[in-house]
């Protein structure tokens, strides 16, 4: 058998989403066209927009479709920065590269100053630090961006507190991992901007959305027709939009079931390897993510060995050459680079089963034993 435990990377599309997308793929019409076919496709897109708005708890007009979560993050970070002449960007130190990289790019090319909010050993951002930064630099801060939950550890961040500390400073939230997994309201959180992505929620790859508060105008990244509120141009990807909406509307993610599987996996791991450490366990976490350190191993060896036993998991970070790198998230939580390179992420989703958990646990002890041996020859 093969066991897929990398749902945080991408998760299978729901059948309802595939069916909806298939029908849309067979349909003719550019949503921007004025004739019958165009109007019909436009209706599908706007129906989808309303469904997504309902799930994200925002206005339909606040949903801007993009080609990916990464694009939505870039649009938000760069757009909110360029919107004013303020130069300070505040982000958490555990953001995804889709937030960190555009922020660093603005530092290198646009004279931005970046302030990173540290996290506790439990993986939660330091609100006191944020409070102090906002008190000291309030009038210079262009935006604050903090993810709703971390993609490596699953630790949920106190976004409501961030918004309350920020006051009138725009707050963007990368909610790619959290959307549809835990309760999340754009409106109640009082966000300026929020990012979601299709393939993390049972929808297709290649579709995301930036939720941007009504009447907030930001400069566009892509010009060429202004289809999405003049903030994003390009013919709307109707089939993927329809697929994403169908996945979101289906509400098929069973958080209780997924959390139970994750928890039983963690109990099993700790029974087999009492020296293992579950990163971020003390904090409130997403139901499906488990990040575990196996002391004395190297995670790329463990991944290879798990893979050869047909269990798919993740090591977290890799550079452009595909070389495994220490995770900036785990290092921000105080782990050394060596320890952070001894960690694996297992992530569970709607298709995960108790059999998956049992199988993964059955191969784990031998994998860890071999991983320990491989690491000890490496240090010889």
């Amino acid at each position, binding site marked *: 058998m093969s066991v897929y435990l990398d749902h945080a990377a991408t998760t299978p599309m729901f059948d309802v989403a595939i069916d909806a997308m298939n029908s849309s793929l067979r349909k003719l019409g550019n949503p921007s066209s004025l004739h019958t076919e165009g109007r019909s496709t436009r209706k599908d897109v706007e129906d989808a927009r309303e469904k997504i708005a309902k799930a994200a708890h925002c206005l339909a007009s606040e949903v801007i479709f993009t080609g990916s979560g990464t694009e939505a993050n870039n649009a938000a970070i760069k757009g909110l920065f360029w919107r004013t002449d303020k130069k300070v960007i505040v982000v958490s130190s555990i953001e995804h590269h889709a937030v960190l990289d555009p922020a660093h790019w603005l530092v290198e090319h646009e004279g931005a100053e970046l302030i990173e909010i540290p996290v506790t050993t439990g993986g939660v951002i330091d609100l006191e630090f944020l409070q102090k930064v906002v008190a000291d630099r309030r009038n210079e801060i262009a935006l604050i961006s903090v993810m709703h939950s971390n993609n490596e550890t699953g630790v949920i961040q106190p976004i409501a507190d961030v918004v309350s500390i920020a006051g009138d400073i725009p707050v963007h939230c990368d909610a790619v991992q959290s959307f549809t997994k835990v309760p999340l309201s754009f409106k109640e959180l009082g966000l300026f901007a929020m990012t979601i992505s299709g393939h993390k929620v049972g929808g297709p790859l290649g579709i995301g959305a930036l939720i941007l508060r009504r009447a907030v105008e930001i400069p566009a990244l892509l010009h060429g027709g202004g289809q999405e509120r003049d903030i994003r141009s390009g013919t709307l990807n109707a089939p993927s939009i329809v697929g994403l909406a169908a996945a979101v509307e289906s509400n098929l993610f069973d958080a209780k079931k997924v959390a139970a599987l994750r928890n039983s996996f963690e109990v099993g791991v700790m029974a087999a390897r009492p020296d293992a450490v579950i990163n971020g366990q003390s904090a409130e976490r997403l139901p499906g993510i488990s990040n575990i350190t196996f002391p004395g191993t190297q995670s*790329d060896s463990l991944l*290879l*060995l798990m893979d050869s036993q047909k269990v798919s998991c993740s090591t977290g970070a890799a550079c452009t*050459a595909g070389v495994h790198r220490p995770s900036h998230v785990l290092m921000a939580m105080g782990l050394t680079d060596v320890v952070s390179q001894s960690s694996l992420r297992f992530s569970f989703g709607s298709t995960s089963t108790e059999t998956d958990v049992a199988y993964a646990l059955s191969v784990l002890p031998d994998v860890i034993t*071999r991983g320990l041996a*491989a690491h000890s020859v490496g240090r010889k």
Partner: protein
Amino acid sequence: MKIIAAMSGGVDSAVAAARAVEAGHEVIGVHLALSSNPQKYRSGARGCCTIEDSHDARRAADVIGIPFYIWDMADEFHEGVVENFMSEYAAGRTPNPCLRCNEKIKFAAVLDRAKAMGFDGVVTGHYARTRESDMGRTLHRAIDPLKDQSYVLAVLNREQINGAIFPLGDTEKVDIRIEAEARGLAVAQKPDSHDICFVPSGDNAGWLRDRMGSEVGPIVDQAGNKLGEHKGAYTYTIGQRKGLGLTVPTADGSPRFVLKIEPVSNTVVVGAREDLAVTSMRGERPIFCGPEVGAAPLRGFVQVRAHGAALDCTYYVDNGQLVAELDAPLLGLATGQAMVIYDGDRVVGSATICETA
């Protein structure tokens, strides 16, 4: 067997991996990341260190249908190969980093890790053959004399040879490219890599000068008379004639050659062509690919460069050092080079040349 295929991104290692799969092995492709700061694209014929090469290796593994991973060996490579390359030059010797890489990385760090993880061996695209006989498993030259890489593999001990598979030794390179084409491997026509992979410009002297500085020193004749100045002794090699920039001509107008590099006094010694002649050599830290050689003299061949000639010699071990006495003199031999002994086409062993006479 369960084996790791070391895949550089070139045509040879790709075909070697494919042949290993066909031979019935369970094969996993591994690309070694040897540079901590890899170039994006390959330039010229220097290979296996770029992101483009790692993509080529991944693509080949996908086409062959085997799992593929990247192993970060940059630290091991730097310590075992690059630093050794610099310190050898600094000591006035001429090292061959490809041998060091086989000795320290491909058949040591990789093989050790593979074995610890439950694999039985490593398959590579080297052109060499192994044979089973009453001597155990022995290492032999490839059938393609132009591609034969047994010289750079002569640093492997018996245990390493037992863990190594070289599927290409019985085929000529031209046929490997045809086979790669037939297998649908996009690297079929990728140029061969030459020279030293971590010196992307191919300019060894410039590379060394950037890292070790260029301290000016004297160029002298064998009597110690100063004839000129050099810009860093390690940028010269024994037997070098061109680029000496000497202003004092010899009495008879005959050319001068580099005879010796003295790192401590930062001196380059030059002399006549006949002064380059070497009739015997001693090598330290001998490694035997098969049965060990003793004090009793044996007849065979010695080779001192990767694609150099096999020279008739008598060889034996004396005081822990491998000695080869040549039938005919050889011109221009640097310490630091590897001496590899052959018995016919069988690789007997190797040592690092520490003394010539």
